[in-house]
């Protein structure tokens, strides 16, 4: 696991923070005197306490893993806390087949990628016009996008359901993907505009004098330079879209359109008499995002700060 907390914010003293074991590095006398970097029995105890807390915090995941490999007989005999008598992969395999997990995964990936593309494209265009083009009424426009962004989904859900039925978009991936993409684009617009407001104007003016049009400037200058922010947005929109709930419950009802979380939550009703299968269903739901988390961990933690505190 890697640390990504190193990048000190501007204004922070360049000196590295006191960093644990390498206490031999030149230190300020203040810290040296109080010995704030020295390990003591108390510091070990505190660390052990926190470690225990984190372990207890993660215990639900462990319990789910343990029980996804037990036969029903094993579970009935030994309860939910025991180690499985044998690691039985059949349960996961059965649930995978019953849920149609491959199909659900494909749906989730397709929809989330679609949402990311739509949201990023719209946000980029909007923010280009507002943040760099400085179009008229840009403050009211920003307030509009921000307002749209905080709206509760329940305030839209029924008319959307009704209109989608009228337009033939109901229970289809296309309409749903556009809808979620548009919602996220409002947040993206707000975030990107604040990034673009610090964009070096000389660059754009120079390119413009060289005869570059709006499109060329966006494509050749703005897009490459805003890639760090865009990549963070991509990762976040992907996770958000993967985890969406209310709209998919209402709009994606048939089996071949459902996303992973939805397809699995349906199991809750069906498997009440089969606890290990239910546990396996939960495990299947947890796994894709855990893998995603470990792959994109740096981006996720970096992005949270970028998005929250402008």
């Amino acid at each position, binding site marked *: 696991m890697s640390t990504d907390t190193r990048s000190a914010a501007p204004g922070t003293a360049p000196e590295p923070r006191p960093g644990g074991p390498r206490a031999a590095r030149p230190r300020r006398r203040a810290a040296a005197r109080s010995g704030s970097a020295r*390990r003591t029995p108390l510091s070990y105890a505190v660390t052990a306490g926190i470690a225990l807390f984190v372990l207890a915090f993660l215990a639900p995941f462990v319990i789910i893993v343990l029980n996804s490999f037990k036969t029903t007989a094993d579970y009935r005999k030994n309860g*939910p806390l025991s180690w499985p008598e044998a690691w039985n992969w059949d349960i996961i395999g059965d649930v995978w087949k019953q849920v149609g997990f491959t199909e659900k995964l494909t749906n989730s990936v397709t929809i989330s990628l679609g949402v990311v593309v739509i949201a990023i494209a719209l946000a980029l265009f909007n923010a280009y*016009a507002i943040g760099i083009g400085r179009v008229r009424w840009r403050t009211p426009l920003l307030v509009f996008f921000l307002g749209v962004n905080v709206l509760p989904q*329940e305030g839209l859900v029924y008319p959307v359901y009704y209109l989608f039925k009228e337009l033939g978009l109901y229970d289809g991936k296309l309409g749903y993907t556009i809808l979620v993409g548009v919602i996220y684009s409002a947040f993206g617009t707000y975030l990107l505009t604040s990034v673009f407001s610090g964009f070096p104007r000389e660059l754009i003016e120079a390119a413009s004098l060289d005869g570059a049009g709006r499109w060329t400037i966006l494509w050749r200058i703005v897009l490459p330079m805003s890639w760090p922010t865009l990549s963070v947005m991509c990762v976040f929109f992907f996770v958000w879209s993967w*985890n969406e709930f209310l709209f998919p419950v209402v709009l994606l009802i048939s089996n071949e359109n459902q996303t992973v979380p939805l397809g699995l939550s349906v199991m809750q009703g069906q498997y009440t008499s089969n606890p290990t299968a239910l546990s396996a269903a939960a495990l299947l739901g947890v796994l894709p995002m855990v893998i995603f*988390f470990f792959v994109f961990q740096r981006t996720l*933690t970096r992005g949270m700060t970028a998005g929250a*505190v402008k």
Partner: protein
Amino acid sequence: MDKKTRPRSAGYAPYLAPGLLLCLIFLVVPLLMTFGYSFTSWQGIGSPTWTGLDNYTRLLSDADFWASFRNIFFVIVGIAVVPTLLGLLLAAVLFDYIGKKHGDRLVSAFRSGLYLPQVIPVAVTGLMWGWILAPKGAVNGILEKVGLSSLSQNWLGNPDLALWVVLFVLVWMQLGYPLVLFLSGLQRIDPELYEAADLDGASWWQRFTRITVPLLRPEVYVVLVTTTIAGLKVFAQIFVLTGGGPGNSTLVPSYFAYQNFFERADVGYGSAISSTMSLLVLLIAGAFLTRQAREDGRA
């Protein structure tokens, strides 16, 4: 060079048009429709009949609505207040104590562990906790093992307990968000400040209350604003954990609206509930924004 005489902002409208238009069609039109339906009686088929403010007067005397409103305060405590307080304390211990004595690697590992629930789909979290809290689930299993089986019960099925159990699960889900924000906020703080405090003989607790908490104010503000708004909108968590029950003990407005829309075909009434909540969310967000704009202006 006629380019120079062109206004600087000309030619950008085509870039704004698609995004703005789609927002209007997909978000603003439905919102206005919901608002319109809220003055009607409608079952979702046929045409709505105008009933004026009837839905709203009904709302004011509806015990379920008031219960959902009371529950939302609990939800905000579970989503905003407790995770923020716990997150502050944990962030300070991790950064200003464990990080200094035992290294950043450990801090980073702890942080990842505590952040993990944030990326798991809420529906799956609900599935998992529902399983653990079930009458024959893991919690009761543990209680039996340690000889406290008298305490074991149907955790989400007990009307006196369900809300507290939901609150606990919400804290579990939410803790990682403030923690990660606070930990990165602490990077901004000049280490000399802590060293100076050390030199003056300040205790860990004094450093926490006098340096860490005041300097993390922007982050605390952001966390409280975003999570309070999220709390007002909470839906999936309730849907998967309790379905608002037992009775109305864990009912929240969004789920109440959902029931009226899709289970009771009382679209007019559901619209009145969601219009009220949309307005409330917009007002609160607006108030926070104006406050922040004023503070930014002063700074």
